[in-house]
């Protein structure tokens, strides 16, 4: 059953990240996810310091707060200081992440709160947190939260598909027809913050970034239909979770690391495969 819980948890993170990552990739903003997943650190520490516990709710609230602070900082640096967006992302999140590290290294020794946990997560130990849900079903606590977020995100993407689609493809045109482009931007950013914040606790920041960027990029190589791309990205994420998990078992290494590596390898294989097919088509057509 341990295998099942770990794979289920990783797959839910994969679905959440693939949905958000698909839109972020087409907006050339994937690194925002990277930024948020690191920038949550000071918020987590402050929440721990104030509430005095590592319970999920205050920690999530603290993480969400600094996640939103990071998006606002990035927005402010690009709009007001007219900084390049990648530079704005780099400046904001390294600053917040570094503050978090300083806070933890100074006052966090006694807590079970360390940089390791934030970066690599503790997906191997997910089944320590098992609790009964309903109808005799037992699930780890984080898995339940991830499941709720997945349902919420799938609903939000279906509900807001046209708004997200038009503002991603052509924001100027969208604005000219009266679409509230800013609303859709923050709608997506809220989804991204929520995803990274609930995911990092179970799988760590590195796997969140790998899931945000890898599966959508792989799906992008395989299809030219955006809806299919989103669904395919979810499937690729799930397959990589399964493959990566068993690879980790087999090699006796970190699960998060193995899944991330697995995603990278799948990308390479698909990239080489699609370029070979393209070359063949080119040869035939000429």
């Amino acid at each position, binding site marked *: 059953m341990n295998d099942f819980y770990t794979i289920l948890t990783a797959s839910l993170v994969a679905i959440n990240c693939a949905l958000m990552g698909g839109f972020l990739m087409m907006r050339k903003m994937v690194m925002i996810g990277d930024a948020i997943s690191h920038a949550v650190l000071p918020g987590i520490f402050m929440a721990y310091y104030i509430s005095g516990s590592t319970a999920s709710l205050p920690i999530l609230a603290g993480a969400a707060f600094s996640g939103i602070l990071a998006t606002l900082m990035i927005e402010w640096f690009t709009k007001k200081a007219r900084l390049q967006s990648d530079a704005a992302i780099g400046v904001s999140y390294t600053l917040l992440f570094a503050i978090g590290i300083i806070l933890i290294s100074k006052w966090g020794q006694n807590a079970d709160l360390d940089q390791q946990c934030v970066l690599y997560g503790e997906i191997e130990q997910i089944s320590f947190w098992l609790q009964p849900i309903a109808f005799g079903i037992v699930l780890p606590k984080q898995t339940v939260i991830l499941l709720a977020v997945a349902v919420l995100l799938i609903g939000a993407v279906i509900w807001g598909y046209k708004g997200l689609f038009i503002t991603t493809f*052509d924001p100027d*045109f969208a*604005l000219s027809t009266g679409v509230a482009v800013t609303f859709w931007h923050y709608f997506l950013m809220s989804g991204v913050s929520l995803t990274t914040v609930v995911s990092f606790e179970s799988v760590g920041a590195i796997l969140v970034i790998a899931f945000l960027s890898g599966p959508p990029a792989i799906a992008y190589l395989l299809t030219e239909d*955006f809806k299919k791309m989103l669904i395919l990205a979810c499937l690729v994420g799930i397959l990589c979770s399964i493959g990566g998990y068993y690879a980790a078992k087999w090699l006796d290494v970190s699960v998060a690391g193995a899944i991330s590596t697995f995603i990278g390898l799948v990308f390479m294989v698909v990239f080489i495969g699609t370029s070979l097919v393209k070359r063949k088509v080119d040869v035939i057509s000429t």
Partner: protein
Amino acid sequence: MKQPPIIEVHNLTVLYGRKPALWNIDFDLPEKQVIGIMGPNGSGKSTLLKSIMGVVTPTSGFTKVYDQSLNNVRDRVSYVPQRQDIDWDFPASVWEIVAMGRYQKRGLFKKLTTEDQDIITDSLEKVNMLGYAKRQISQLSGGQQQRVFLARAIAQQGDLFLMDEPFAGVDIATEEMIISLLKDMKEAGKTLVIVHHDLHTAQSYFDHLVLLNTRLIASGPTEEVFTDQILTDTYGGKLTTISKISQELENKEFPIRHK
């Protein structure tokens, strides 16, 4: 009685940082004409269209469309952004892009009706792209991309069209197609405002010209403002090009008024 202007621009200034893109622009545009907006690179042509469409917020001044704020008449105005501003590798089909022209009327949360689908089909037919409806946009040529953008604007069913460089980088067939389309639209009572680059074709394409170089140089009927003096004022240092063109025009015996 004099026709009320369809677009009014009042003391419009747009600054990017400290650098002005447009400086104190003031003019009116007449209805039911083909209007060209011309000027050298970086003269603020695109910024002008974007300000009228509310995509760029002016630093000072204001614009009116149909004697009202744009928000009240948005459904009558179509905007065709510059083709190069978009990522054409986006995974989407021609049909999906043209369907965006119907989002405004139908709202973002309702399904498109059969009426919408007929309008999309019709719009694609008008630009000879119906056979490409299911094509991925990444497989289109520059001219075909431009046609898709025009189809999207036609699907909006507005009366006023603002187009940013629709002739840039398109093949001759597409250019001719766009010209005949513009003529049909003008006959149907539409107003067309077009950012344009090519001085050679300006006289034959446009009824009215706006000449820009950060400041407004001239705005008026083509035969009144397409003069050596005004073109020199607009294009400044690039005199060689200008004199070459006026030379060419004189050789073809185009009527140019010398002041």
